[in-house]
């Protein structure tokens, strides 16, 4: 499956009609309707990377409550699958 454009993605600096999210090479990823949605959208690649890293860590550590750990890992896996189209 084709992967998303490499991060980081950032908002274009400068006045535009609608905020733009661009990759490092200045290519437009998306045109956003309202400013308050820009940070969460632009941080998508960062969040996905951190989510995968933290998943590995959580998988390694013991927990006082395994049910909580298992449920969290399931939520993480669903989020990664939804974001990438691929099961981790």
């Amino acid at each position, binding site marked *: 499956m084709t*992967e998303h*454009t490499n991060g980081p993605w950032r908002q274009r600096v400068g006045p535009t009609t609608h905020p733009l999210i661009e990759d490092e090479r200045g290519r437009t990823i998306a045109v*956003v309707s309202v400013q308050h*949605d820009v940070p*969460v*959208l632009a*941080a998508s690649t960062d*969040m996905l990377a951190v*989510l995968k890293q933290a998943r590995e860590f959580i998988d390694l550590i013991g927990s006082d409550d395994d049910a909580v750990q298992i449920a969290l890992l399931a939520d993480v896996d669903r989020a990664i699958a939804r*974001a990438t189209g691929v099961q981790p």
Partner: protein
Amino acid sequence: MTPPTPGPYRVLEIIPAERGGLCGRAPEGHDTITSDSGGDCRIEILSTTDHMRDVFGSGHGGHIATVPIPLGLAARAQAIANARLLAAAANLLAVCKMQREFIESARNMDNAVQVAVLADVDGAIALAEGKTP
């Protein structure tokens, strides 16, 4: 700071009628709809499950962003991957916060690793919320 539009978000591909667009489901799993008003192929990120109301602007739900689809199959595939990731943004943020809570409360671990992972999670959350970590 105004919080982002609540999720879930979803992906809707708009295909102009002159390019043979059809309403239905793309092989990648997202919905598609034909546009009679022309324009380029594009993907809309929407905040509601009712795509017809979104497209015709009843104000039920909302438009989050537009992902342009460049010409070429590889470019289209990457635009769809980008749209899928964007549509998951609100969910990613929520799960990052859940991870943070779990890692912070966990015991019996290498503290240096815990601190480093927490710092990375905090950085991503701060970025997503438009704050300085």
